């Protein structure tokens, strides 16, 4: 009775069959290294993380009103300059306000109507947008709109599930997903790190990189500090990049840019 499935498995040749590492290496060589590789156009960030690649889940976090959406919008504009047009789920900022925040609204794609707390709906729109418009970059603002926290007994586990599904989608579909997350309230701003991300340690465990952003009015009125908490592919840790808001977008300050350029030449 038990012979049958074993016999079938011996001849099994489905796409998930078990193969040797040598065969796998040969198969991987047939594939392009990356389907999409796009730069942030923030010199020090690009120098340290070597741009963004398909299959990556990037977390953008920071306290409320500290520049998360602005950073995401800056990246959006910079991606469109490289002819990559992202798909946006702007739950936090109403659509007219969201579009008016761009100095020049770029070409992006958006669902005509948003549905909150329905992850399968988000996954379906991501697939729809890819099939229709070949979008490989996705921004979701923000995580807590993807599930109903009021009905959740254990937010941490729920978040872990959401993050894992997004990461799987990024890997299987060849997407770069940027997910915006809030930090825990009351946490001292000087202590901000990926450990301050609200509700779950799964967020940083499952993601490829965490970018923390906060405004630094003590430096200058329009200044902000971006910190690459970690980046799995390159191994970068706690890299700080000073930014300044100019014409509705974040740019690296001149001094830092020169340093990054010098480092690139070296």
């Amino acid at each position, binding site marked *: 009775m038990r012979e049958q499935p074993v016999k079938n498995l011996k001849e099994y040749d489905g796409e998930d069959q078990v193969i040797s590492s040598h065969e796998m290496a040969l198969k991987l060589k047939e594939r*392009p290294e990356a389907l*999409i590789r796009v730069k942030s156009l923030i010199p020090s960030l690009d120098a340290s993380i070597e741009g963004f690649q398909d299959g990556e889940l990037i977390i953008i976090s920071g306290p409320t009103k500290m520049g998360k959406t602005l950073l995401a919008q800056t990246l959006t504009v910079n991606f*469109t300059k490289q*002819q990559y*047009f992202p798909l946006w789920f702007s739950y936090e900022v109403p659509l007219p306000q969201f579009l008016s925040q761009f100095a020049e609204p770029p*070409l992006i794609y958006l669902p005509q109507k948003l549905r909150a707390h329905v992850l399968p709906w988000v996954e379906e729109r991501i697939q729809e947008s890819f099939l229709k*418009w*070949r979008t490989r970059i996705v921004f979701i603002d923000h995580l807590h709109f993807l599930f109903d926290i009021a009905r959740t007994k254990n937010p941490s586990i729920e978040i872990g599930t959401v993050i894992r599904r997004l990461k799987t989608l990024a890997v299987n579909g060849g997407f770069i997903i940027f997910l915006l997350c809030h930090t825990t309230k009351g946490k001292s701003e000087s202590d901000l790190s990926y450990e301050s991300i609200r509700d779950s340690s799964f967020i940083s465990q499952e993601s490829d990189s965490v970018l923390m952003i906060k405004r630094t009015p003590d430096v200058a009125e329009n200044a902000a500090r971006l910190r690459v908490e970690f980046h799995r592919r390159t191994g970068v840790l706690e890299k700080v990049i000073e930014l300044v808001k100019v014409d509705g977008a974040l740019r690296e300050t001149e001094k830092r840019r020169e340093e990054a350029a010098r480092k690139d030449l070296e």
Partner: protein
Amino acid sequence: MVTPSLKDQFYQELEAWALEQIRAGQESISLMAEVRERCAADWEIEELTRAIIFDEAQIMESMKGEAERARAAREESQRV
């Protein structure tokens, strides 16, 4: 003589035409993005598709302007 309803129809059709051009641009960009991905190793195709995508995006931008102007003109003519 150009009647108000004829003017209204003209601007309405102009807006619809501009919207159609925007949709055609989206289709074209999508197709070029797919070609760029599939031929990632060929830098010449990469450059060409990039240039076409850039042009299409510019055309879409100007068509958006056309549609907005047509809509504004129609609203204006309705007010008069």
